Each structure stands twice: as C-alpha cells, then as structure tokens.
C-alpha cells in the first residue's frame, strides 16, 4: 500500500530524512517510533504530498507522491500533530467543509458527517464551536476529519500527544477500531503506545531507519525473557568456564547461558531464562553449592525504553540485547 524507497529530505543545512526505505502492506497498523526531531513528521509530510522529497521515491496505493499528488491525496487521510481545525466553525460545519473538499458529493455528505461523528464520538458536540472544545474532543474531530472520505491510508502524527490518560486510552481504542478497513501509519515517541496499537514498528532515529520488525518479535526479543548477569569466581581455578556454564545451564528455567567475559579467574555470564520464570535465587544457590564465589548477581533485562534509547542514541551500539 505504501512504498518508500531511498527517501531523503534535505533542508538548507540539515538532513531531516536520510535514505529511508520501508513498505507497509494493506490493512496494517504501523508505528513510527523515534525521538523528537528524528524525521517522523517529515516522512509523513512527504507521504501526504505536503513536502516534496529531495531524493528517492514514495508511493501510496501505486501512485507516486511527486507525479500524481492528487491521486495520492484522494487516498490519504492525514492528521497532523496539531489537528487542522478552524476555531470559528461548528464541528458539523467543519466536517461538512472538509468532506466536500475531499470530494464527497453533496448528496452523501450529510450521512457521511453523521457516520464519522458517531464513529469518533463527537456527535454530542457537533453543533458546538470548535474553539470551545476540549483537547480530547479536538483530537477526535481531527481524526473524524482524516477518515471522512474513507481513505485507504491513514497517517496520524502523534495522535495522542497532549491528551490525558483517559483520552489517550480512548484514542488508542478508536485507532484500533479503524484498522482493517484502513492502512494506518502513526507516529509516536511513546513506546507502550506502539505496543498496544500497532502490529509493526519502524524505529527511526536521526533520519535513518534503525529497526523494522513486528511488535511481537520486538517485544519478545527485547523483554520477553529475563536476563541475569552474574560474576562467578571459583577459588584457585577449581573450575573452568565450561564447567560453570554447564552447571548454570542445569538450573531449571534457564534457557541460555552466555560467557561474556573472563578475567583473572573471574567469569562473567549472562543467563536468559524462559518466559515468566525467575531464576535468580536458583542460580545463586547453584553457584554457592558448588563452592564458588558469587561476586555479583544483577538483572540485565532492558526495558523497552532502554532498548529504544540504545537503538536511537548517538553512539552506535552493536546489538540491542545485552550490550552493556
């Protein structure tokens, strides 16, 4: 549905988006994750034909954003970071205007406005002035505006920014309910949001894509299992690393043992456990019962936030898991 190839966007001095490529297939909800200034908004603006790319190509539903912008625009519903609302208009009047602008015929517009008002739960404020609405309602009117012409693709730029927790929950549910019929790209810098609403995630940092994966894989890879780091010191070299490793592997619940470091007869291991198992106590007991010194025992499980920081921080960290 959406195809982005080698897309770059340069401003006078800065490179906002650098050679990014990704694909989104029909009906997917994709989270666009990255810190502020990573290039999320720029990428979205290119997809919506608001900005032209400096290099590379992007297409929506087979139409190129540069050569066939009108066709692309017809198929896209876009909610910018600040909903594009006219404060002096009534909600109904506004949706009517946007609907007509997006090419809904006069005969269908009234029913369509009612439908999206219902869908986005703004029916009760439809005769109110937009300037009198709360932030949550404004966001929903913005969403209603984006889906009014029933577009194939929905592009939502930080749809939950600035909302209170209850509104965030409602907005997320609303977005989820829209999936299936629409292909959705939403940007955010909040990790749990991606986890809860998206199927696929594209992590972007400094204009580059640093990871693309399904949310399921990513969370599994990152925090599905608990990892424990331990430093073992067998007295006077009474045991080698292989021996220790073997003993640790026998502890119930342990799935993998990795030797990280060995120095002066001290061995550092990283132990991963099966999902939902806590093995720290058993590990400690096992080491002590063998007569070895247990110098250190600490959890190394990285939270999603840490992974995210690692992936997106400036120094190039090698692998997301276990990098210390």
């Amino acid at each position, binding site marked *: 549905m959406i195809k982005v190839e080698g897309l770059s966007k340069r*401003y*006078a001095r800065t490179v906002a988006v650098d050679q990014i490529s990704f694909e989104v297939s029909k009906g997917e909800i994709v989270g666009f994750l990255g810190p502020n200034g990573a290039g999320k908004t720029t990428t979205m*603006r290119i997809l*919506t*034909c*608001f*900005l*032209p790319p400096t290099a590379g190509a992007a297409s929506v539903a087979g139409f190129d954003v540069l050569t066939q912008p*009108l066709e692309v*625009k*017809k198929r*896209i519903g*876009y909610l*910018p*970071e*600040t909903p*594009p*609302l*006219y*404060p*002096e*208009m009534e909600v109904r*009047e506004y949706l009517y*205007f*946007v609907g*007509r*602008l*997006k*090419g809904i015929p006069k005969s269908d517009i009234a029913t369509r406005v009612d439908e999206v008002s219902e869908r986005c739960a703004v029916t009760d404020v439809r005769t109110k002035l937009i300037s009198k609405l709360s932030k949550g309602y404004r966001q929903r009117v913005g969403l209603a*505006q984006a889906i009014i012409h029933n577009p194939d693709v929905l592009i939502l730029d930080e749809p939950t920014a600035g909302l209170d927790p209850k509104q965030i929950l409602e907005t997320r549910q609303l977005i989820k309910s829209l999936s299936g019929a629409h292909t959705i790209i939403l940007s955010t810098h909040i990790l749990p949001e991606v986890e809860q609403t998206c199927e696929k995630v594209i992590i972007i940092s400094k204009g580059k894509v640093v990871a693309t994966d399904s949310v399921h894989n990513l969370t599994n890879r990152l925090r599905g299992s608990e990892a424990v780091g331990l430093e073992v010191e067998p007295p006077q070299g009474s045991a080698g690393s292989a021996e220790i490793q073997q003993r640790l592997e026998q502890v119930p619940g342990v799935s993998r043992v990795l030797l990280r470091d060995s120095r002066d007869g001290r061995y550092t291991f990283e132990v991963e456990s099966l999902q939902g198992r806590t093995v720290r106590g058993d590990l400690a007991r096992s080491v002590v019962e063998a007569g070895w010194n247990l110098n250190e025992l600490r959890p190394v499980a990285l939270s999603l936030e840490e992974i995210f920081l690692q992936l997106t921080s400036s120094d190039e960290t090698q692998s997301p898991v276990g990098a210390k």
Partner: protein
Amino acid sequence: MKNIWIICRKELKSYFASPIAYGLMAFFAAISGYFFYVITAVFVQRGIQSQMMGQSFPMDVNEWVVRGFLSNVSVIGLFLIPMITMRLFAEEKRTGTIELLVTSPVKDIEVIAGKWLAALILYAGILLISALNLAILFLYGKPDWKPILVGYLGLLLLGGALLAIGTFISTTTKNQIIAGTATFAVCLLLWVFDWVSYETTTWAKVMSYLSVVAHFEPFSKGVLDSKDIIFYLSMIFLGLFLTARSLESLRWRS
C-alpha cells in the same frame, strides 16, 4: 470550479463569523456616507448659488457628485484591502490548517482563487453600501446610471488587483499584523505613485503608470478604456501568480 466555490464559501463564513466583516462595513458606511454628504452639500449649495445669480449653465449630477464620490470611495478602499486580505493565508499558516488545504485533493490555484474570490465578494458587498448613497440621487435627480456602473466596475477591478497583492503578501508570513501592515504600505505606495504624474522624466512616468488610483480616474468619469482594464487584469494575474509561487515555495523551504 466546485472546489473554488467550497473554499470561497468557507472563507465568507469565516469573515462573517468574526466581527471583521461587520466592522469594515460599518467603518466604510460611516466614512463614505460622510463624503457623500459633503459632496452633495457642496453640489446643492453651488446649484442654489448659480440659480440666484441667474446663471444657467447645466450642472451635471454625474460630473459633480458621482465622479468625486467614486474617487473618494476608491481611496477608502485602499484602507479596507489590508484588513480583508491579511488573514487569508497568514491565519492558516499560524494555526496549521494550511496542511489540511495542501494535503486535500484540490489544486493550489483552486485554494488561491477561492480565497481571493471570497475577499472580492466581501469587498463588493462593502461597496454595495456606498451604492445606497447613490440610490438617494435617483430619488431626487436623474443621474445617468451607465457611468455609475462603469465606476463600480472600475472599483471592483481596482479592488481585485489590490486584493490579489494582499493575498500574496498574506502567504509570506504567519503574522496577520505584519501581512496587514505590509499590504497597507504597498497599497499606499501604489496610490502615492500618482503624485509624481506632473513630472515628465521616464522614471516618473513609469511610477505614475503603476499607480492603481490613476487608472481608476477614467472609470470614475464613466470612461471604459481597455488599457485600464488590461492594467487591472494583469495586476490581478500577477498577484495570484505570485501567490501560487509563494505557496509552492512554502513546501520547498518550510
């Protein structure tokens, strides 16, 4: 075409949703009404005077009242234009709604034309108030209606040209006040260019040719000259063309 009308209707609604339109109308009604009163009073006085002195040269209402009145209206118009155009794009840029317009399946030129047309309609509506004054002339005299019509056509063309320039200036900033002030400055400049018309150097000729008010002079007399019409039409075209370029550059630079 349909899109132009959709945009135009929305703009008109916005004008009338705020006090702008009403304020401008009231301001214009008061000022133009005052000028009309003064001009008519002078005319009536002169009429009585010449009658008392037994002179009987014909006094033409069109010549004495309509022409002077329309000239005044054209100058008052200069003050209205910035207030009409300043918000057109500046406001959309400030609130971010420009993103909605630009990402909707409409052409830039349709957006621009719609907005300009709305401004022109509001301007025409305001002018209509001044026509009420002239209607009084028909109650008590027999003015020729054709020169009046030509005069109003001239006012519309003059307004259209300045509105197009104002629309362009509005795309260059997010700040309505700046847009309004700059437009006012340009309007004023295009007016005062006329003041050098007595000079005969080439520069002065070029400058006075650019004066929007000088080109209105024939219209106020009821003279329809193709050269003035072409001047205004090319000003309108230039203004809207610059607007389109400016809107486009907004995306390349942003």
